[in-house]
């Protein structure tokens, strides 16, 4: 059993996720979300974060291919930095910072409830793949 320290636990729809704190730059409330026509659904839009353009990603699409709720102004989001780029993940609720336990590949919190541990680098690579694929073979 491995213990993972400093993990942020959050929910998107019915799913509970966790991400290690070292990837998380900020927890923010999103500003106006600008829709990006022709972009894949994984890209929920773009926001202004301290004067820079922040892409907002949909975790549900990236992991399960099922679109979650559209990102809107005032929604909570985790600002993630990985693979040399910064993006936001829309979340419904940020629960807490906690320690998790990994036993034989399954991740649970202290109470034994299972969680999905996100790999932000993989998530971002997947988003890049989707955007590139769409750009090369427009629908």
């Amino acid at each position: 059993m491995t213990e993972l320290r400093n993990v942020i636990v959050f929910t998107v729809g019915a799913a509970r996720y966790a991400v290690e704190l070292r990837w998380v730059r900020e927890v923010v409330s999103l500003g106006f979300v600008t829709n990006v026509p022709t972009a894949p659904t994984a890209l929920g839009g773009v926001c202004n974060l301290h004067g820079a353009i922040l892409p907002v990603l949909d975790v549900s699409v990236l992991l399960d291919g099922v679109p979650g709720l559209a990102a809107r102004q005032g929604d909570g989001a985790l600002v993630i930095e990985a693979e040399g780029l910064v993006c936001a993940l829309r979340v419904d609720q940020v629960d807490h910072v906690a320690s998790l336990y990994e036993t034989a590949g399954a991740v649970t919190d202290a109470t034994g409830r299972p969680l999905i541990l996100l790999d932000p680098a993989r998530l971002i690579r997947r988003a890049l793949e989707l955007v590139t694929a769409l750009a090369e073979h427009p629908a």
Partner: protein
Amino acid sequence: MSDGELDFDAEELAMLRQLFRSEAQDALETVTARLLAGGSAKPSAEALTEMMRVTHTLKGAAGTVGLHAMVDLSHRLESALAALGREPSAWQAVTADRLVEVIDALRGYLDHVNEPSSDAAAAEIRTQIDHIARPNRRAQTEPPTFVEPPPEPVLDSASDTGPLPEPKAWLHVEPERIDTLMSSAGELLFDRTRIERRVQLLRTLARDLARTRQTLHEAIVDESATRPARSLLVEAENALAGQAALLSQTTAALLDEIEALRRTIGEVQRGLTRIRMESAKSLMTHAARTLRALRRATGVTVELRTVGEATEFDKAVAEHLVDPITQLLRNAVAHGVEPPEERAAHGKPPVATITIRARQDANSLVLEVSDDGRGIDTAALSERLVATGRWSAARARLANDADVLAALLDTGISVRGEADELAGRGVGIGLVRQTIAKLGGEVKVSSTPGKGTTFTMRLPLSTALAQAMLFKVDGQVYAIPNIHVVDTTLVEPHATTATVRHDVLPVLRLDQLLGHGAATEKKPAIVVSFAGKSLVCTVDKIVGAREIVIKPLGPLLAPLTLYAGATISGSGKVQLILDPAQLVRRAHPDAPGAALSDPVSAPMVLAGRALVVDDSRAIREAMTSMLGSEGWIVDVAEDGARALQMTRQLRYDLVVTDLEMPALGGFELIARLRKDDRFRTTPVVIITSRASPEHRRRARDLGVRALVAKPITRRKLLEALAAR
């Protein structure tokens, strides 16, 4: 006084006077700054000397360009300043205001430099100056002599025309020339984005090549292959391996070069920006003047303190900062500063101070406007937010002081209930935030009850400013670099072409590409031109031309070729900037570079511009819808003759035609098209209800791709398009 006595021809003189005007404006600015540095207190001896020196130089320059009235006036101003220097007792509380008035009058006089001098205006200023020095009645005395430069005899037109010693080798450049360079540098940014995309494509290609090689390798390893075939395969694999390696090396090198290009573009932009830099001084001088006017208007006594006058700004940015600063000063005078009695009761000095601080830190320019007034009552503000319905009571309960202060910037609400003419009921604060956001910066407010309020504006040091045409689709605002916008027009419903200044241009339905626009309405449109190709883009609403700050989209969005970048609106919303090159490419699929950026389209045309020729309107509509949903831009013609006419103006990537039509039949149309070089190999699909063997033979001879029997279904059409 006539100009005939001067050594310059009319043109040269006009230019010289233009130069003099900008020099004189700077000189008057310096004098004003010196004058106002001490509030209404008497300037120091050193300040007076400086003011006299500058006025003296102004006098000399005015003589050189033959502006004798100006020589006279600056001489009088110099004399008045000298008198004040000798007789400090002559300085009165109103003297500073009077001097400012005279300087303003001189400045006004300068605006008419190229016109015949108005003696009435000169006489008016003369009276004002004399009034200043009147207490000691020595206005007409000669100014004291300076060691450097030696005093020149004044009011002597003959010697006035002599050349002035050049103090410094200044280069005077028209601002427009620099602006042109700036916008070219901005264009370079777009160019770089495009090159970057191509390189990304090469990378993909290298990856594919490696994959092909792997497939080949597996074929070689396959034991079932015959020996001679295998040796050929091995050879091919080696060649492929070499090529793949070369391609990926080249791509990597190209990426390095783009990085170098990026740095160079950055340097060019910074260099150009530096040319346009000016110190915060003129901004602060302006602030001092504003405050003086406010003082006179309200009777509120405030002193201005400025820190960091040497901080440099982009002139374009500085111009935009005048309004926010004015607004904040008004706000401070109207809301921030307490009456003297109240100040005294709190143990504060009776005269309030407003401080403007400018400084650079790391990558930004920071400008602070603070007052030492009563501070913002966050409780009262919170109550007003609830009372005006902007906040719910629950939200107000949860908010801390910082949240409440931030709301002040968002909603522009005033703490004082009643309307206030001076500060515009706090509406102005919202405008401050908008202006700063437009420049790519942000505003923060902090306040300590009883101690004062500080507004901090943080701006990017270098701003890639560009002119853009803004428009709306589905309520969202987009931008197109204005340099590529030729015109605006209106497009009829369903039109696939529009005539602009006698040219028939293709229509790109941006309202449908970016939103859910219906083709049934007449739409406003923007005429875009790029690399010699033009098109008309329909939108929902044209907002107009604006100056925007270009922000990069970042690596995640870079593959979306439709966008060249983004900008942030005054209210902090992201607005996407469309790439004109891509728009043109969508309407003119044969534009240069089309094949490279879309490798899949090379062997078989997947989409482009299609011409549908049929005498039945229903079939035309049906085909338009089917092809449209496959991404084709569709033009229609009701017979062969009309189709021929259209092909003369536009190139098509696909022609779909009926056979039996009035005027000119399908086979005749195809035969004529094949004689035109542009349509020699264009895919042609025939739709007909009579597909006899004879028809098939004729079609084959004309190089027709497929014959589709009516009734046409989507599937039949797609199969025909995919046929080789």
